[in-house]
């Protein structure tokens, strides 16, 4: 069987499980959990990093040849701030990858579609690899694709809620229509949710809270790793169809033979 890697911009990933760095009880646990997950792309909130400090504890814990850092703009409220944050991240972390998160609402952290589209267009023109976190809005996803997003990251449920794929119907449309990778971000609370997203044809999932807040982050990381692999394998193999009930009625094609 040919290799089933995921490519985004110039990078090739063997793991389709992306992870985050927030909410862990310690840097050590975070490090162990991320390593156990096999994740090769790990998002870091720029606001959490001590940019002046060369020995930032979180960044130190993520120094691994397989791990790529994905700075995110969490905390910004509009396009202007996001663009500034992305430029800062590029300088400080020496990467042109940026996870674009613009949530003016501090309670549910729901993304602002208008500002996200604006920021994405500008950042893509400036040569950033933009990965926008957005609502499961199929039209917005196409618009982002058109202005140069390298993938789209629609949410499954409100961030941190662990409620699973509440937006399933819309995610399915996005997956069907998209010409860039679709990464389900936010809401994935259990390995079965992750597997489900992968079975539906998502290219990857991003999981943070469900790992960080579990009583056993390292063990649950391993479970997520297996779930994502199993879901992907099932997608490639194709699921057996659910059976419809047969309905009897008068023949519709008899006229061909009369």
């Amino acid at each position, binding site marked *: 069987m040919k290799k089933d890697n995921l490519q985004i911009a110039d990078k090739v990933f063997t793991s389709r499980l992306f992870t985050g760095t927030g909410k862990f009880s310690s840097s050590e646990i975070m490090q162990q959990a991320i390593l156990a997950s096999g994740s090769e792309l790990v998002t870091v909130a720029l606001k959490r990093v001590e940019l002046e400090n060369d020995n930032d504890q979180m960044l130190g814990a993520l120094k691994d040849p397989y791990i790529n850092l994905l700075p995110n703009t969490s905390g910004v409220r509009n396009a202007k701030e996001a663009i500034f944050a992305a430029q800062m991240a590029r300088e400080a972390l020496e990467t042109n990858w940026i996870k674009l998160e613009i949530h003016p609402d501090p309670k549910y952290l729901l993304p602002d579609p208008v500002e996200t589209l604006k920021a994405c267009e500008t950042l893509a023109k400036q040569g950033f690899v933009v990965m926008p976190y957005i609502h499961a809005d199929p039209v917005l996803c*196409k618009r982002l694709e058109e202005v140069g997003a390298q993938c789209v990251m629609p949410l499954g449920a409100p961030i941190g809620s662990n409620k699973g794929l509440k937006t399933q119907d819309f995610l*399915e449309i996005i997956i*069907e*229509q*998209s*010409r860039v990778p679709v990464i389900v971000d936010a809401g994935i609370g259990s390995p079965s949710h992750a597997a489900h997203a992968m079975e539906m044809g998502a290219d990857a999932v991003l999981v943070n809270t469900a790992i960080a807040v579990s009583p056993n982050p390292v063990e649950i990381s391993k479970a997520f790793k297996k779930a994502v692999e199993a879901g992907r394998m099932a997608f490639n193999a*194709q699921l*057996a*169809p*659910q*059976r*419809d009930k047969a*309905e009897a*009625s008068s*023949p*519709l*094609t008899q*006229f*061909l033979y009369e």
Partner: protein
Amino acid sequence: MNSFKKLLAEYSWDRELESIFAKSDADVQFALQNRKRGLDDFKALISPAAKPYLEQMAKQSRQITKNRFGNIMQMYAPMYLSNECQNICTYCGFSLTNKIPRRTLTDDEIKREAEFLKNKGYDHILLVTGEANSKVGVDYMSNAIQILKSYFSNISIEIQPLDQNEYERLIQDGLYATLVYQETYHRETYKIHHPKGKKSNFDYRLATADRLGRAGIHKVGIGALFGLEDWRADSFFTALHLKYLQKTYWKTRYSISFPRLRPFSGGLEPKVEMTDADLLQLICAYRLLDEDVELSISTRESEVFRDHVAHLGINSMSAESKTNPGGYVVEPQSLEQFEISDERSTEVIAEMLHQNGIEPVWKDWEKSW
């Protein structure tokens, strides 16, 4: 820049044809039950292996069409504006070398034809020409659309392929849709049937839907002319084209037609026969692949066939069509592009649809958009 040409180059005709014929009974059963059908399922559904499942396909196709479109049929009428043509196409009555009187409708004649169709109830109209860029070019079409705008809500064209900026101009004038059939996706066979004229350029024609998408048109119609090559392979490539266009130009709607070679004066015998059962299988396969795509049937097909497919997947049809310029009132006896088969009047077709529990829809567009 996106182009279907690039995608098509990744495929081999022979390999696809072979894989269609290799589809098994199990592949067909899988495709029938698959919730999210893809091109591989489409191949199974158009394969010979699906023939024993035609009744089941028809049932599903009927149900999907009802769910998506309701009990309605979009009605349209073609209006031939000109039979001038600089192309040689082996299968067409308007071909350059056919010694027929050539005629292009004047403004006044266009209005007379329009009045006839308007009185019949039509509000969606399809303007058809040959390919004569100097006589019947963009200026002529622009003028025709502007005249016809005051009669009809929805204007489509089936004319020679144009450049993007030319489409943009016609869209500004009020053009809604463009139909452009590749005839066959088999490059070498295409060459044989289009030896001369601008149409002999396979790639320019192939890229037409891309140009239309970039121009921001509302609807694009694609299809193959059945009889030139194997209908199964041509249909697979049409479906591939459809899926590519839907993803790339996502604001545009799409329509598929299924023209089979029809007799005309001095005409061509089909290389590959497509039976009624084959055509029904194809229509159902398209509907099972795509709930939303418009499936359109013209008066090329017989009364019996049209009466039945009207509720088995088709959601757009014409009636009482004339395939000669001025054919409705101006000059009914001029030579046709091809002979139509179902010659019943619009009123009879509307009554037939009503009998089948289907409402003919005449207007489904607002021209001020």
